[in-house]
């Protein structure tokens, strides 16, 4: 097949792709990159046109002869296209390395895995960090406000570019799960199966509220400079770190935090009667914040959280059932018992909507105390469920067992 492997081959982008373009001072670490929205521009939900934009992606495994074994992995808020293998920026394993690879649930001996950096992201796909050709400066707040649907439309252009008529599966957790739902609703003929994980058919008021705290933290940082920090050679690191810290709490659970840290002190025997990180949990959160700013763009954080806020299938289609009416897609909805950011009742509401649309749906709640982040973890029951569902769907799709 003409689509090459690319686990670690940023040099082997398919013909016609733009050369990886990098902001000054950074190595070209985006992997494959393709220019989409040309010659015809892509219409955004806001009504604006996006023309000739770059989209960065990675692939794992091999596309089969009839191009029927492709799985599109949709990443979450702070993820990127480096789902598996070693991440070129952080040097750590990709965010879903435990699920993608030979013999893993997303078995690269059997499936061709595609993961692209979302629209508005900051790892090579167009977003507020990229250069605005009209001004020669970073877009910053001149970048249009985007939606989950816009992200999906951009991914669909990538799938067209790769010559894949129908994806075997679209899968993702959290915001990635919202993209999965949007895919299944928008392009039902273009996917055989859909696996929305730890997600919901709408962003809840509580999640909008947490997003707003994060955005306000970023915008309150004087280094944000009205969004223009890149041109002014500075970065709102403190604001972005605080945004990450508050968000990180929502990814865990009270039980998991208590089990991990309790009230244990950090490198000291007694409290200091000061505002240093006395407690291990403080130190942990500070570390999460500090490491995050190295790899993420503050304006991207604003744009992506906004896209999540706007997601609401019922208001867009009248009802969840209406969004999936007559669908032939096989769904597997997964939730985690201790996830309070996307609680199981959100998944159950989604399942009720899918049932009302007479969709073929499986629904499993995994028992765990690890909170929302469970979708990134190697929980045996979770991975067995993914494997079983994909095996069943592959049999129905006529994919030969490996």
């Amino acid at each position: 097949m003409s689509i090459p492997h690319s686990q670690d081959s940023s040099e082997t982008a398919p013909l016609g792709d733009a050369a990886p373009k990098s902001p000054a001072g950074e190595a070209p670490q985006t992997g494959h990159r393709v220019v989409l929205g040309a010659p015809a521009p892509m219409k955004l939900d806001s009504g604006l046109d996006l023309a000739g934009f770059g989209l960065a992606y990675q692939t794992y495994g091999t596309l089969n002869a009839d191009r029927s074994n492709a799985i599109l992995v949709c990443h979450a808020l702070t993820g990127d296209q480096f789902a598996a293998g070693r991440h070129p920026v952080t040097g750590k394993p990709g965010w879903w390395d435990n699920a993608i690879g030979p013999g893993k649930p997303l078995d690269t001996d059997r499936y061709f895995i595609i993961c692209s950096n979302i629209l508005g992201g900051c790892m090579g796909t167009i977003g507020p960090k990229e250069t605005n050709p009209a001004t020669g400066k970073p877009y910053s707040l001149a970048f249009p406000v985007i939606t989950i649907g816009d992200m999906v439309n951009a991914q669909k252009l990538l799938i067209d570019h790769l010559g894949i008529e129908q994806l075997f599966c679209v899968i993702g957790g959290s915001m990635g799960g919202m993209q999965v739902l949007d895919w299944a609703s928008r392009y039902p003929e273009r996917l055989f199966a859909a696996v929305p994980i730890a997600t919901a058919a709408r962003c809840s008021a509580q999640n909008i509220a947490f997003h707003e705290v994060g955005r306000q933290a970023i915008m309150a940082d004087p280094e944000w400079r009205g969004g223009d920090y890149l041109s002014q050679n500075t970065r709102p690191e403190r604001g972005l770190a605080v945004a990450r810290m508050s968000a990180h709490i929502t990814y865990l659970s009270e039980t998991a935090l208590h089990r991990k840290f309790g009230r244990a002190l950090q490198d000291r025997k007694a409290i200091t009667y000061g505002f240093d990180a006395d407690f291990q949990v403080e130190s942990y959160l500070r570390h999460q914040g500090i490491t995050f700013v190295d790899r993420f763009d503050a304006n991207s954080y604003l744009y992506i959280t906004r896209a999540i806020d706007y997601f609401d299938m019922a208001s867009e289609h009248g009802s969840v059932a209406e969004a999936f009416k007559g669908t032939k897609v096989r769904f597997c909805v997964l939730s985690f018992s201790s996830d309070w950011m996307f609680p199981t009742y959100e998944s159950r509401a989604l399942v009720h909507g899918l049932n009302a649309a007479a969709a073929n749906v499986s629904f499993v709640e995994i028992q765990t105390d690890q909170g929302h982040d469970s979708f990134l973890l190697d929980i045996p029951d979770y991975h067995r469920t993914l494997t079983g569902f994909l095996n069943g769907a592959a049999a129905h799709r006529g994919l030969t067992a490996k």
Partner: protein
Amino acid sequence: MTIPSLPTSNGRIRADLKLVADLVPSGTRVLDVGCGEGALLHHLAQTKNVDARGIELRQEGVNACVQQGLSVVQGNAETDLKDYPSDAFDYVILSQTLQAMRDPRGTLGELLRIGKHAIISFDNFGHWAMRLGLMFEGRVPVADGTRHKWYDTANIRPCTIRDFLTLCDDLGIEPERCFTVHGGGRTREVTPDSWRARLTARQAVFLLK
């Protein structure tokens, strides 16, 4: 006095499940309500090429099903069936679950709304051993009595074949076919008003429309 659980036939699926499976034509849309670990759904998917789906209350059962590649949702039949559109399925199956429901009457109506046909199997509390047990031992019959007592049995709404027929009559439901399951897993088709069937059947399987 109790009725032992039915033996498996040839180490494969239970006699009553085999009987239910035989009533389902190939290529149809089937919903198994209370599908457990998916034995019937798996059998149907393998042998009848049906569009097989399930709903199960117990999480372990659901996980086992989905891990086999079956399309099963975790949910409560008594609250979740209302979501399904009318005539979404050709056959809706309720095996050994009717008597565990809070509202068997409402559920039966829902089953025949979302399915063109329903297949219901249940323990017959009119079996002679049940009658004699109550009469001579003074003990309330418990169908799954090898494992349970009256206070922890899942069958909170025991009924006889006659009770079931009366309910069908009330709801205007017409039994199309009726089968009985006897000791050793033997099955036979009967007319529902046969007194002999009512006395000797350990379980009944009805095809309704």
